[in-house]
């Protein structure tokens, strides 16, 4: 079976560095699916993105990735992101706190300011995290 090498790198650690069967992720301009022997590619990952990894045995795992870039070279997919977590690692309590904080911030801001955009982005991230965490633990969708 054809393999693709996946590396997910964040400033704190390298989360994934192994062979997989395929990866799907959200870029800034839409969804990408990368299979083995993909053509060389470079793109930006959505602010709050989710990646679906198909393991070699066909199992699928979800990964939260944010503010990153993806690059395919020589059958290696490198995702360089600021934050990354496996769906089952996500701490719902912390996510909820982040969401509440973002909402609070949003309420007091002018819709056109740069801070509004930032706060909205952090809200999106919190919500994406929550979605992934719930999906992985089987507690239903939002």
């Amino acid at each position, binding site marked *: 079976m054809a393999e693709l090498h996946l590396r997910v790198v964040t400033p704190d650690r390298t989360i994934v560095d192994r062979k997989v069967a395929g990866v799907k992720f959200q870029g800034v301009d839409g969804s990408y699916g990368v299979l083995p022997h993909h053509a060389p*590619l470079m793109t930006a990952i959505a602010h709050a993105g989710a990646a679906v990894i198909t393991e070699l045995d066909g199992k699928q795992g979800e990964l939260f990735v944010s503010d990153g870039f993806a690059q395919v070279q020589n059958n290696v997919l490198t995702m360089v992101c600021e934050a990354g977590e496996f769906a089952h690692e996500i701490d719902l309590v912390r996510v909820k706190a982040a969401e509440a904080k973002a909402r609070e911030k949003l309420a007091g801001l002018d819709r056109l300011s740069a801070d509004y955009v930032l706060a909205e982005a952090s809200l999106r991230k919190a919500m994406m995290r929550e979605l992934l965490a719930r999906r992985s633990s089987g507690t239903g969708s939002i």
Partner: protein
Amino acid sequence: MANLKELRGRIKSVASIAQITRAMEMVASMKLRKVQAKTQAFRPYVDEIRSMISAIAAKVSGEGDVPLFQAREVKAVGFFVVASDRGLCGSYNSNLLFGLKKKADELLAEGKQVKFWVYGRKAYAWLTRRGFAVERFFVEPPLDKADFTAAKMVGQALVDAFTSGAVDDVRLYFTRFQSMIKFVPTDAPFLPIRTIAVGDKAGEKAYAQDFLLEPDATTVFNRLLPRYLETVVFDAMLQSLTSEQASRRMAMKGATDAAVRMQKGLKKVYNRARQENITKELLDIVGGASAVS
């Protein structure tokens, strides 16, 4: 006799100082290991970001249009200074700050403004005491707990200062960690961007020149640029932190050694004095006995 007692006291106090400095040395080496692990974990990220940006820089036409690349007449220079929060780390802070002072004085003599962004309480205290205005002093999170988010915050503050025109040249002033015993105060240009380089060049990989770029080079480049700047800042912070801990470890080792040496010397003096006393007493007894008989 009073002399003996005094010596005993001194020996005791020197011993307890040695104990404290030894403990501090141990703490510093533990922290040093931690920082080095952090640096190690950060390395792949730096390498990736750098290789991506260098791959893409060639594809972006009209770099000159990006404000961060535009050099302009320098009226005000901004320094981002990284020093330590605590003292007792040898000449780490003074080496850095005296160099900085020299630079700042030169710039002031040329009639330019100098502004400071500071990490580390020692640098803040030093600069304010000498009458320099510190634009922003970062306290939260403290440097030894700083993560990438802190670097992001700093990077943002510096970019804002540059784009708003508050400063026309931003430089990083930090201590480069060259080896366990060598730390070099370094003045590195930051903005406007002149060349793209961070970390060591050893990890440079050969990439295919042709690749798909989605949605387009400029979009990706504009998003990559802030990340790149943050890695440069974080790299400076990590190097300074490593230097600080290594420097503290060295200073504390020196202090422990000196205290141990001093203790040995004092002990010799003490023993000699004690022996002298005993001899004197013996002579007295013998002299008294011979006088009686």
